């Protein structure tokens, strides 16, 4: 029993760390004018690996909701599920269109792709949509984010300071 609780706790911690990393990586990568095209491309490619881990950690939820999709379900969960699919498709479009107009990643692999303005406009459009979808995804998981931050970051930090202040008082 306690083993399962510890496993869940560790998984939640890992999920939190990965989510924060993906969030920061995308926020930086979303502005290539300030971060530079090399940072933009390599960061986006490496964020793809983190997205894989994020999906693997949420696998049970994905399977559970997919199975229950046709039956009666909470409307918020349904919206969340549809939004997650939209996000997945949008990330795929962003990545593919980004690779098609790549100036750093693909040339470094020795591949030069023909110029195509459609990919460029598709990349812009899907990237702008991604920012909105990321906001919606964050908003729908806000209670989880707030709870996890409180439990694993703020509370340990608070207890650290309170023990320190207690020691100071006793000293």
């Amino acid at each position: 029993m306690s083993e399962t609780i510890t496993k869940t706790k560790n998984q939640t911690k890992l999920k939190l760390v990965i989510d924060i990393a993906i969030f920061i990586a995308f926020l930086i990568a979303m502005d290539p004018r300030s971060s530079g095209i090399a940072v933009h491309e390599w960061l986006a490619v490496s964020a793809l690996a983190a997205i894989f881990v994020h999906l693997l950690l949420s696998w049970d939820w994905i399977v559970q909701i997919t199975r229950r999709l046709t039956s009666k379900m909470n409307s918020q969960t349904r919206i969340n599920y549809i939004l997650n699919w939209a996000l997945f498709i949008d990330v795929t479009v962003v990545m593919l269109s980004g690779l098609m107009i790549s100036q750093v990643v693909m040339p470094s692999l020795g591949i030069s792709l023909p110029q195509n303005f459609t990919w460029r406009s598709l990349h812009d459009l899907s990237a702008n949509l991604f920012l909105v979808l990321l906001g919606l995804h964050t908003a729908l998981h806000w209670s989880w984010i707030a709870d996890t931050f409180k439990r694993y970051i703020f509370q340990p930090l608070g207890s650290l300071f309170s023990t320190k202040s207690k020691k100071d008082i006793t000293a």
Partner: protein
Amino acid sequence: MKTLGRILIILIAFAIAMSITYMAVNANGSTSASGLSFQGGGEDFRSVGLRPESQDEGSSVSGIIFGLMKNIIIVAFVVAMVAFPKNLMQQRRRAVPVRTN
């Protein structure tokens, strides 16, 4: 083994979505050329002025922070527009007294 299977499923889903996008763009008929061409096969976006971001600009810390802040503000705005009304509605629902007969 289970994880590998799951990774494979995610990869297949990615591949399907990518193939559909690629076919849709190609079917659009606006492609100048199809397929891959190896290095030296043409000009890049920068040289023809289609891609405004210049690689020569490089990445500056202040630039990254500015970009980060701008995107955080956009995401925070969307979060505030959705999360606050949602919380408010939940609080109202909780505040409604339960009738007992």
